[in-house]
């Protein structure tokens, strides 16, 4: 897993930044937004499957977090607290949509995928990777929210089970069970899509 996906690094300066924000310095908050915008945006996108709305919802989460800074008690990392706010925003959106699949990310109904061409990969390999990710994103969207959230946090955002539990408001053990079941269901969905292990 890429190191930048992990939440492992401690940011000792965050309490100072939060104190500055509380004193009315809005520009300090830009540091936190820059630090976590990709994490929050990716989390939201993987949960709702709609790239355009994901950006709006991610911004909403940052605004909500800023307004609630006084209530951040520092029991967890700021990023965990922020992800929980973002996750609640996603669930509200999904509830309002009254369905758990908000897949059509683009005009063609296909999910948005990163446009980048990996260095060292042929165009054919890049295309293959994009197709694989499209299949995965579709399968994720079909996963019940209860399991999707754990799978996304654990395997895509790289959190440990304690952090997953903290974001979801459950014990680490329960987060582990949910992740396992979610991955098992995802596996079945992928097999239904004709996915084979040798495609990895």
């Amino acid at each position, binding site marked *: 897993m890429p190191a930048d996906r992990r939440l492992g690094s401690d940011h000792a300066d965050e309490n100072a930044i939060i104190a500055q924000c509380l004193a009315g310095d809005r520009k300090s908050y830009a540091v936190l*937004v820059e630090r976590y915008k990709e994490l929050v945006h990716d989390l939201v996108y993987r949960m709702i499957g709609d790239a355009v709305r994901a950006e709006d919802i991610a911004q909403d989460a940052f605004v909500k977090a800023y*307004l609630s800074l006084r*209530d951040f008690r520092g029991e967890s990392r700021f990023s965990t607290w922020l992800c929980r706010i973002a996750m609640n925003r996603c669930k509200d959106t999904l509830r309002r949509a009254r369905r758990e699949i908000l897949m059509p990310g683009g005009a063609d109904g296909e999910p948005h995928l990163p446009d980048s061409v990996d260095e060292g990969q042929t165009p054919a390999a890049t295309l293959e990777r994009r197709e694989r990710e499209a299949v995965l994103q579709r399968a994720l969207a079909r996963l019940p929210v209860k399991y999707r959230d754990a799978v996304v946090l654990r395997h895509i955002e790289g959190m440990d089970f304690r952090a997953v539990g903290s974001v979801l408001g459950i014990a680490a053990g329960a987060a582990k069970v949910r992740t*396992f079941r979610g991955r098992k269901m995802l596996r079945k969905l992928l097999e239904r899509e004709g996915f084979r292990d040798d495609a990895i």
Partner: protein
Amino acid sequence: MTRFEELLEGHLTGELAPEEEREFATLLAQEENRRTLAAHQNTAILLEGMGRLPLSPSFTEEVLARLPERRSPAWAKLWGILWATRALRWNLASAVALSLVLAVTPLVWRALTGPSAILTGRHPAVTVIRFTLHAPGAERVSLVGDFNGWRLDEISLSDTTGQGYFSGVLPLKPGRYAYMFVIDGTKWVTDPGAEGHRDDGFGNKNAVVTVNETQQVDDT
């Protein structure tokens, strides 16, 4: 979850004890279990290899534009004014004016603090609030809140009754404060008798106390 599935999750996260790893290896003798392990490993690899979508370059600016102005406390503004670096330019007139002020100030001070002087004006608007929690069986109860940066073990409440009624007083300036009690350093408890509560972003509630300008004594 079957025993194999339980062990599988621990195996994937590298959390199995040596004897559990041995048990897991034994269970892997079955072809079906080996297939299951490969399927989970491959699914995890697929998920962890997913790329990130590019974000709009103006994302941060858009967030900042949506933030409301937060009124900073008066003391913070004053502090900023006091400690801001400034370049002062002098001329003869300002030097003479300063000298006059320095010369007259002791005279005025003596006049004001002499025996006939009457102290008037308001005392600083600080209100003493009593915080109380009934926590039978607790060894210690701390008070934490945004007034002390949620730092544990800074404000301890005492049980003078021996019946588990922990209480303490805290001087607070006018404002609205969120707070919680922490029992024995680990258990966070919302004040059931608080005037109000607000969401802490984690699904729990912080208690809220409001200190008004005119408030003199309050029991919370």
